[in-house]
Protein backbone atom coordinates (compact mmCIF):
# COMPACT_ATOMS: atom_id res chain seq x y z
CA UNK A 1 0.00 0.00 0.00
CA UNK A 2 1.28 3.47 -0.80
CA UNK A 3 1.83 5.88 2.09
CA UNK A 4 -1.00 8.03 0.69
CA UNK A 5 -3.55 5.21 0.79
CA UNK A 6 -2.15 4.10 4.14
CA UNK A 7 -2.83 7.50 5.73
CA UNK A 8 -6.35 7.74 4.28
CA UNK A 9 -7.14 4.24 5.51
CA UNK A 10 -5.62 4.90 8.92
CA UNK A 11 -7.55 8.13 9.46
CA UNK A 12 -10.83 6.52 8.40
CA UNK A 13 -10.13 3.63 10.75
CA UNK A 14 -9.39 6.04 13.59
CA UNK A 15 -12.56 7.98 12.87
CA UNK A 16 -14.51 4.73 12.89
CA UNK A 17 -13.10 3.79 16.28
CA UNK A 18 -13.84 7.27 17.63
CA UNK A 19 -17.31 7.54 16.11
CA UNK A 20 -18.55 10.09 18.64
CA UNK A 21 -16.30 12.78 17.16
CA UNK A 22 -17.90 12.38 13.75
CA UNK A 23 -21.39 12.39 15.21
CA UNK A 24 -20.65 15.55 17.21
CA UNK A 25 -19.97 17.53 14.05
CA UNK A 26 -23.09 16.23 12.38
CA UNK A 27 -25.35 16.84 15.37
CA UNK A 28 -23.90 20.35 15.75
CA UNK A 29 -24.77 21.06 12.12
CA UNK A 30 -28.35 19.79 12.49
CA UNK A 31 -28.96 21.63 15.76
CA UNK A 32 -27.60 24.99 14.55
CA UNK A 33 -29.76 24.83 11.42
CA UNK A 34 -32.82 23.77 13.43
CA UNK A 35 -32.42 26.63 15.90
CA UNK A 36 -33.11 29.30 13.28
CA UNK A 37 -36.81 28.52 12.69
CA UNK A 38 -37.27 28.57 16.45
CA UNK A 39 -35.61 31.96 16.68
CA UNK A 40 -37.11 33.81 13.71
CA UNK A 41 -40.56 32.28 13.64
CA UNK A 42 -42.37 29.76 11.42
CA UNK A 43 -43.24 32.02 8.48
CA UNK A 44 -42.67 29.67 5.44
CA UNK A 45 -41.66 32.34 2.91
CA UNK A 46 -39.14 33.83 5.26
CA UNK A 47 -37.69 30.42 6.07
CA UNK A 48 -37.43 29.49 2.41
CA UNK A 49 -35.59 32.72 1.68
CA UNK A 50 -33.03 32.32 4.43
CA UNK A 51 -32.50 28.56 4.12
CA UNK A 52 -29.45 28.67 1.78
CA UNK A 53 -27.58 31.14 3.96
CA UNK A 54 -28.43 29.38 7.21
CA UNK A 55 -27.42 25.95 5.96
CA UNK A 56 -24.19 27.23 4.47
CA UNK A 57 -23.20 29.19 7.56
CA UNK A 58 -23.91 26.16 9.72
CA UNK A 59 -21.83 23.96 7.41
CA UNK A 60 -19.02 26.50 7.70
CA UNK A 61 -19.11 26.46 11.50
CA UNK A 62 -19.44 22.69 11.70
CA UNK A 63 -16.47 22.05 9.44
CA UNK A 64 -14.45 24.60 11.40
CA UNK A 65 -15.33 22.85 14.62
CA UNK A 66 -13.82 19.65 13.28
CA UNK A 67 -10.53 21.32 12.29
CA UNK A 68 -8.93 20.94 15.71
CA UNK A 69 -8.88 17.19 15.26
CA UNK A 70 -7.05 17.35 11.94
CA UNK A 71 -3.45 17.42 13.20
CA UNK A 72 -3.65 17.74 16.99
CA UNK A 73 -3.57 14.03 17.85
CA UNK A 74 -0.75 13.28 15.40
CA UNK A 75 1.19 16.22 16.80
CA UNK A 76 0.75 15.09 20.39
CA UNK A 77 1.77 11.44 19.90
CA UNK A 78 4.72 12.07 17.59
CA UNK A 79 3.19 10.63 14.42
CA UNK A 80 3.49 14.02 12.76
CA UNK A 81 7.29 13.91 13.19
CA UNK A 82 7.31 10.56 11.46
CA UNK A 83 5.25 12.01 8.62
CA UNK A 84 7.65 14.92 8.26
CA UNK A 85 10.52 12.39 8.12
CA UNK A 86 8.81 10.15 5.59
CA UNK A 87 10.44 9.85 2.17
CA UNK A 88 6.98 10.66 0.80
CA UNK A 89 6.59 14.43 0.22
CA UNK A 90 4.75 15.97 3.16
CA UNK A 91 2.20 17.78 1.00
CA UNK A 92 0.98 14.44 -0.39
CA UNK A 93 0.44 13.15 3.14
CA UNK A 94 -1.37 16.41 3.92
CA UNK A 95 -3.71 15.82 0.96
CA UNK A 96 -4.34 12.30 2.27
CA UNK A 97 -5.18 13.64 5.72
CA UNK A 98 -7.45 16.36 4.35
CA UNK A 99 -9.21 13.85 2.11
CA UNK A 100 -9.88 11.53 5.04
CA UNK A 101 -10.96 14.50 7.14
CA UNK A 102 -13.42 15.60 4.46
CA UNK A 103 -14.84 12.10 4.17
CA UNK A 104 -15.68 12.01 7.87
CA UNK A 105 -16.42 15.69 8.56
CA UNK A 106 -17.56 17.16 5.22
CA UNK A 107 -19.36 14.43 3.34
CA UNK A 108 -21.87 13.68 6.14
CA UNK A 109 -22.90 17.35 6.09
CA UNK A 110 -23.56 17.13 2.36
CA UNK A 111 -25.63 14.00 2.80
CA UNK A 112 -27.79 15.32 5.63
CA UNK A 113 -28.32 18.73 3.99
CA UNK A 114 -31.33 17.66 1.85
CA UNK A 115 -33.23 16.67 4.98
CA UNK A 116 -32.57 20.11 6.43
CA UNK A 117 -33.61 21.64 3.10
CA UNK A 118 -36.98 19.91 3.36
CA UNK A 119 -37.26 21.19 6.91
CA UNK A 120 -37.06 24.71 5.43
CA UNK A 121 -39.50 23.81 2.62
CA UNK A 122 -36.93 24.38 -0.12
CA UNK A 123 -37.97 23.44 -3.67
CA UNK A 124 -36.42 20.28 -5.05
CA UNK A 125 -34.18 21.90 -7.67
CA UNK A 126 -32.80 24.31 -5.08
CA UNK A 127 -31.96 21.32 -2.87
CA UNK A 128 -30.10 19.68 -5.75
CA UNK A 129 -28.10 22.86 -6.39
CA UNK A 130 -27.37 23.14 -2.69
CA UNK A 131 -25.97 19.63 -2.62
CA UNK A 132 -23.78 20.30 -5.64
CA UNK A 133 -22.51 23.54 -4.10
CA UNK A 134 -21.78 21.73 -0.82
CA UNK A 135 -19.97 18.89 -2.58
CA UNK A 136 -17.74 21.43 -4.30
CA UNK A 137 -17.50 23.83 -1.38
CA UNK A 138 -16.87 21.70 1.71
CA UNK A 139 -13.54 20.32 0.39
CA UNK A 140 -12.43 23.94 0.00
CA UNK A 141 -13.34 24.51 3.64
CA UNK A 142 -11.28 21.50 4.70
CA UNK A 143 -8.31 22.54 2.56
CA UNK A 144 -8.25 26.15 3.77
CA UNK A 145 -8.91 25.01 7.32
CA UNK A 146 -5.92 22.69 7.19
CA UNK A 147 -3.60 25.69 6.81
CA UNK A 148 -5.12 27.33 9.86
CA UNK A 149 -5.00 24.12 11.87
CA UNK A 150 -1.34 23.59 10.96
CA UNK A 151 -0.39 27.16 11.86
CA UNK A 152 -2.02 27.04 15.29
CA UNK A 153 -0.72 23.59 16.19
CA UNK A 154 0.50 23.34 19.75
CA UNK A 155 -0.63 26.84 20.70
CA UNK A 156 -2.76 27.45 23.74
CA UNK A 157 -6.25 28.65 22.79
CA UNK A 158 -5.61 27.45 19.26
CA UNK A 159 -9.30 26.80 18.72
CA UNK A 160 -10.34 30.44 18.78
CA UNK A 161 -7.30 31.44 16.77
CA UNK A 162 -8.21 28.96 14.03
CA UNK A 163 -11.64 30.57 13.80
CA UNK A 164 -10.12 34.04 13.47
CA UNK A 165 -7.64 32.89 10.84
CA UNK A 166 -9.91 30.73 8.79
CA UNK A 167 -13.40 32.26 8.86
CA UNK A 168 -12.47 35.33 6.77
CA UNK A 169 -11.00 33.00 4.16
CA UNK A 170 -14.25 31.05 4.09
CA UNK A 171 -16.20 34.13 2.94
CA UNK A 172 -15.89 33.60 -0.85
CA UNK A 173 -17.06 29.99 -0.54
CA UNK A 174 -20.02 31.15 1.56
CA UNK A 175 -20.96 33.91 -0.89
CA UNK A 176 -20.86 31.73 -3.96
CA UNK A 177 -22.28 28.64 -2.26
CA UNK A 178 -25.30 30.37 -0.80
CA UNK A 179 -25.49 32.52 -3.93
CA UNK A 180 -25.86 29.46 -6.13
CA UNK A 181 -28.83 28.22 -4.12
CA UNK A 182 -30.46 31.64 -4.01
CA UNK A 183 -30.03 32.03 -7.77
CA UNK A 184 -31.62 28.69 -8.52
CA UNK A 185 -34.47 29.50 -6.12
CA UNK A 186 -35.08 32.71 -8.10
CA UNK A 187 -35.24 30.73 -11.34
CA UNK A 188 -31.80 31.82 -12.56
CA UNK A 189 -28.92 29.60 -13.59
CA UNK A 190 -26.58 28.66 -10.74
CA UNK A 191 -23.82 27.74 -13.14
CA UNK A 192 -21.68 30.84 -12.67
CA UNK A 193 -21.64 30.43 -8.90
CA UNK A 194 -20.87 26.73 -9.09
CA UNK A 195 -18.05 27.33 -11.54
CA UNK A 196 -16.54 29.87 -9.18
CA UNK A 197 -16.66 27.41 -6.29
CA UNK A 198 -15.07 24.83 -8.59
CA UNK A 199 -12.33 27.33 -9.37
CA UNK A 200 -11.67 27.95 -5.69
CA UNK A 201 -11.52 24.20 -5.17
CA UNK A 202 -8.90 23.87 -7.91
CA UNK A 203 -6.91 26.78 -6.53
CA UNK A 204 -6.99 25.61 -2.93
CA UNK A 205 -6.13 22.05 -3.99
CA UNK A 206 -2.91 23.40 -5.47
CA UNK A 207 -1.93 25.94 -2.86
CA UNK A 208 -3.25 24.73 0.46
CA UNK A 209 -1.43 21.37 0.83
CA UNK A 210 1.83 23.10 0.07
CA UNK A 211 1.15 25.90 2.57
CA UNK A 212 -0.05 23.37 5.14
CA UNK A 213 3.13 21.33 4.79
CA UNK A 214 5.23 24.46 5.33
CA UNK A 215 3.18 25.43 8.37
CA UNK A 216 3.53 21.92 9.83
CA UNK A 217 7.31 22.06 9.49
CA UNK A 218 7.30 25.40 11.30
CA UNK A 219 5.09 23.99 14.04
CA UNK A 220 7.43 21.02 14.50
CA UNK A 221 10.50 23.24 14.71
Amino acid at each position, binding site marked *: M*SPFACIVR*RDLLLAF*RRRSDVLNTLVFFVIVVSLFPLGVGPEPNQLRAMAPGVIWVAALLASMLALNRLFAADFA*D*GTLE*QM*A*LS*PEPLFLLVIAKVLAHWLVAGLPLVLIAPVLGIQFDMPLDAIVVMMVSLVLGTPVLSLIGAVGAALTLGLRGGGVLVALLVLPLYVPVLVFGAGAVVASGAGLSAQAHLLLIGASLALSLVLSPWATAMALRISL*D
Partner: protein
Amino acid sequence: MLEAYRLEGTRGDRTLFRGLSFSVAPAQLLHLAGANGAGKTSLLRILCGLLLPAHGEVRWGGQPIAAMREEYAAQLLYIGHANALKDELTALENLEIGGTLAGRRCTRDAAFAALEELGVGRCAQLPVRALSQGQRRRVSLARLALGAGGGGGNGAALWILDEPFAALDTAAVAYLENLIARHVDAGGMAVLTTHQPLAVTAVTMLRIELDFEMDARS
Protein backbone atom coordinates in the same frame (compact mmCIF):
# COMPACT_ATOMS: atom_id res chain seq x y z
CA MET B 1 28.46 9.28 6.26
CA LEU B 2 26.76 11.72 8.57
CA GLU B 3 28.57 14.97 9.26
CA ALA B 4 27.71 17.83 11.54
CA TYR B 5 29.47 21.02 10.64
CA ARG B 6 29.78 23.81 13.23
CA LEU B 7 26.27 23.33 14.55
CA GLU B 8 24.76 25.85 16.88
CA GLY B 9 21.55 24.98 18.63
CA THR B 10 19.33 27.39 20.52
CA ARG B 11 16.12 27.00 22.44
CA GLY B 12 14.36 30.28 22.99
CA ASP B 13 17.22 32.73 23.68
CA ARG B 14 19.40 30.09 25.31
CA THR B 15 22.35 28.68 23.39
CA LEU B 16 22.59 24.93 23.94
CA PHE B 17 25.76 24.23 21.99
CA ARG B 18 27.96 26.13 19.59
CA GLY B 19 30.53 25.17 16.97
CA LEU B 20 29.76 21.49 17.32
CA SER B 21 31.36 19.41 14.57
CA PHE B 22 31.57 15.63 14.35
CA SER B 23 31.08 12.86 11.87
CA VAL B 24 29.70 9.36 12.04
CA ALA B 25 31.01 6.88 9.49
CA PRO B 26 29.50 3.50 8.60
CA ALA B 27 29.95 0.92 11.36
CA GLN B 28 30.15 3.63 14.01
CA LEU B 29 27.94 4.37 16.95
CA LEU B 30 27.64 7.83 18.47
CA HIS B 31 26.54 8.05 22.07
CA LEU B 32 25.33 11.50 23.08
CA ALA B 33 25.50 12.14 26.78
CA GLY B 34 24.69 15.14 28.89
CA ALA B 35 22.56 16.34 31.77
CA ASN B 36 18.84 16.99 31.43
CA GLY B 37 18.28 20.07 29.34
CA ALA B 38 21.76 19.97 27.82
CA GLY B 39 20.26 19.82 24.32
CA LYS B 40 20.51 16.16 23.41
CA THR B 41 17.02 15.94 21.97
CA SER B 42 17.45 19.24 20.13
CA LEU B 43 20.67 17.95 18.59
CA LEU B 44 18.98 14.73 17.47
CA ARG B 45 16.10 16.69 15.96
CA ILE B 46 18.61 18.86 14.12
CA LEU B 47 20.34 15.75 12.81
CA CYS B 48 16.97 14.48 11.54
CA GLY B 49 16.16 17.77 9.88
CA LEU B 50 13.12 18.43 12.05
CA LEU B 51 14.79 21.41 13.65
CA LEU B 52 16.87 24.00 11.85
CA PRO B 53 20.22 24.77 13.48
CA ALA B 54 20.87 28.43 14.26
CA HIS B 55 24.18 28.06 12.45
CA GLY B 56 26.01 25.33 10.61
CA GLU B 57 24.59 22.41 8.71
CA VAL B 58 24.15 18.66 8.74
CA ARG B 59 25.50 16.76 5.76
CA TRP B 60 24.75 13.30 4.49
CA GLY B 61 27.21 11.85 2.03
CA GLY B 62 28.77 15.32 1.69
CA GLN B 63 25.51 17.09 0.82
CA PRO B 64 23.46 19.30 3.14
CA ILE B 65 20.35 17.39 4.20
CA ALA B 66 18.10 20.40 3.59
CA ALA B 67 18.76 19.98 -0.13
CA MET B 68 17.94 16.26 -0.25
CA ARG B 69 15.17 15.78 2.26
CA GLU B 70 13.45 12.78 0.64
CA GLU B 71 16.62 10.81 -0.15
CA TYR B 72 17.89 11.42 3.36
CA ALA B 73 14.55 10.40 4.85
CA ALA B 74 14.74 7.08 3.01
CA GLN B 75 18.03 6.35 4.79
CA LEU B 76 16.90 7.47 8.21
CA LEU B 77 15.00 5.84 11.00
CA TYR B 78 14.14 8.17 13.87
CA ILE B 79 12.52 7.10 17.11
CA GLY B 80 11.85 10.06 19.33
CA HIS B 81 10.61 10.59 22.86
CA ALA B 82 7.04 10.14 21.69
CA ASN B 83 6.19 6.62 20.59
CA ALA B 84 4.14 7.70 17.56
CA LEU B 85 1.52 5.10 18.40
CA LYS B 86 -2.25 5.49 18.14
CA ASP B 87 -4.15 4.35 21.21
CA GLU B 88 -7.13 3.17 19.17
CA LEU B 89 -5.13 0.98 16.79
CA THR B 90 -3.64 -2.40 17.57
CA ALA B 91 0.11 -2.86 17.95
CA LEU B 92 0.21 -4.65 14.62
CA GLU B 93 -1.68 -1.89 12.78
CA ASN B 94 0.54 0.73 14.36
CA LEU B 95 3.70 -1.00 13.25
CA GLU B 96 2.43 -1.60 9.72
CA ILE B 97 1.50 2.07 9.37
CA GLY B 98 4.85 3.15 10.78
CA GLY B 99 6.68 0.96 8.29
CA THR B 100 4.60 2.08 5.32
CA LEU B 101 4.97 5.72 6.30
CA ALA B 102 8.73 5.27 6.32
CA GLY B 103 8.39 4.34 2.66
CA ARG B 104 9.09 0.64 3.06
CA ARG B 105 7.02 -2.30 2.02
CA CYS B 106 5.73 -3.74 5.24
CA THR B 107 3.78 -6.97 5.16
CA ARG B 108 1.64 -8.16 8.04
CA ASP B 109 3.92 -11.16 8.55
CA ALA B 110 7.04 -9.00 8.74
CA ALA B 111 5.33 -6.70 11.25
CA PHE B 112 4.25 -9.65 13.36
CA ALA B 113 7.73 -11.14 13.29
CA ALA B 114 9.19 -7.84 14.44
CA LEU B 115 6.74 -7.66 17.35
CA GLU B 116 7.58 -11.23 18.28
CA GLU B 117 11.24 -10.35 18.30
CA LEU B 118 10.64 -7.47 20.69
CA GLY B 119 8.65 -9.82 22.91
CA VAL B 120 5.27 -8.20 22.35
CA GLY B 121 3.89 -10.73 19.88
CA ARG B 122 1.20 -11.66 22.39
CA CYS B 123 -0.12 -8.10 22.35
CA ALA B 124 -0.15 -7.76 18.57
CA GLN B 125 -3.93 -7.68 18.33
CA LEU B 126 -4.53 -5.53 21.39
CA PRO B 127 -5.24 -1.81 21.07
CA VAL B 128 -2.19 0.10 22.23
CA ARG B 129 -4.35 1.78 24.89
CA ALA B 130 -4.30 -1.50 26.81
CA LEU B 131 -0.50 -1.79 26.84
CA SER B 132 1.88 -0.71 29.57
CA GLN B 133 4.46 2.04 29.08
CA GLY B 134 7.27 -0.46 28.51
CA GLN B 135 5.22 -2.51 26.08
CA ARG B 136 4.40 0.61 24.09
CA ARG B 137 8.08 1.43 23.89
CA ARG B 138 8.74 -2.08 22.63
CA VAL B 139 6.06 -1.75 19.94
CA SER B 140 7.60 1.54 18.87
CA LEU B 141 11.09 0.02 18.81
CA ALA B 142 9.85 -2.94 16.79
CA ARG B 143 10.35 -0.69 13.76
CA LEU B 144 14.07 -1.31 14.26
CA ALA B 145 13.56 -5.04 13.94
CA LEU B 146 11.35 -4.79 10.83
CA GLY B 147 12.89 -6.87 8.09
CA ALA B 148 15.62 -7.92 10.50
CA GLY B 149 16.77 -10.52 8.01
CA GLY B 150 18.08 -7.85 5.70
CA GLY B 151 20.10 -5.79 8.13
CA GLY B 152 17.23 -4.63 10.34
CA GLY B 153 15.56 -1.27 10.50
CA ASN B 154 14.03 -2.14 7.15
CA GLY B 155 17.11 -1.04 5.31
CA ALA B 156 17.66 2.32 6.96
CA ALA B 157 21.36 3.08 7.16
CA LEU B 158 21.15 5.60 9.97
CA TRP B 159 19.29 5.08 13.22
CA ILE B 160 18.63 8.10 15.39
CA LEU B 161 17.25 7.05 18.73
CA ASP B 162 16.17 9.37 21.52
CA GLU B 163 16.34 7.60 24.89
CA PRO B 164 15.58 4.19 23.39
CA PHE B 165 16.08 2.44 26.73
CA ALA B 166 13.56 4.52 28.66
CA ALA B 167 10.84 2.38 30.31
CA LEU B 168 12.39 -0.89 29.12
CA ASP B 169 13.12 -3.84 31.44
CA THR B 170 16.61 -5.36 31.63
CA ALA B 171 15.86 -8.16 29.14
CA ALA B 172 14.62 -5.68 26.56
CA VAL B 173 17.60 -3.40 27.17
CA ALA B 174 19.96 -6.29 26.50
CA TYR B 175 18.04 -7.28 23.39
CA LEU B 176 18.06 -3.70 22.08
CA GLU B 177 21.79 -3.30 22.71
CA ASN B 178 22.31 -6.47 20.75
CA LEU B 179 20.09 -5.24 17.90
CA ILE B 180 21.99 -1.95 17.71
CA ALA B 181 25.32 -3.78 17.78
CA ARG B 182 24.23 -6.02 14.89
CA HIS B 183 23.07 -3.01 12.90
CA VAL B 184 26.32 -1.12 13.41
CA ASP B 185 28.35 -4.25 12.83
CA ALA B 186 26.66 -4.73 9.46
CA GLY B 187 27.86 -1.29 8.37
CA GLY B 188 25.04 0.81 9.73
CA MET B 189 25.26 4.02 11.72
CA ALA B 190 23.53 4.88 14.95
CA VAL B 191 23.20 8.02 17.02
CA LEU B 192 21.54 7.67 20.38
CA THR B 193 21.09 9.35 23.71
CA THR B 194 20.87 7.53 26.99
CA HIS B 195 21.72 8.07 30.63
CA GLN B 196 22.61 4.44 31.14
CA PRO B 197 26.10 3.10 30.57
CA LEU B 198 26.04 1.60 27.11
CA ALA B 199 27.12 -2.03 26.85
CA VAL B 200 27.34 -2.25 23.10
CA THR B 201 30.59 -4.09 22.52
CA ALA B 202 32.68 -4.82 19.49
CA VAL B 203 31.73 -1.68 17.59
CA THR B 204 33.45 1.67 17.23
CA MET B 205 31.81 3.88 19.77
CA LEU B 206 32.11 7.66 19.77
CA ARG B 207 30.91 9.69 22.69
CA ILE B 208 29.99 13.34 22.89
CA GLU B 209 29.17 14.96 26.16
CA LEU B 210 27.00 18.03 25.87
CA ASP B 211 27.70 20.42 28.69
CA PHE B 212 25.69 23.59 28.82
CA GLU B 213 27.63 25.07 31.73
CA MET B 214 30.94 24.86 29.91
CA ASP B 215 29.46 26.43 26.80
CA ALA B 216 28.08 29.28 28.79
CA ARG B 217 31.55 30.09 30.14
CA SER B 218 33.43 29.88 26.90
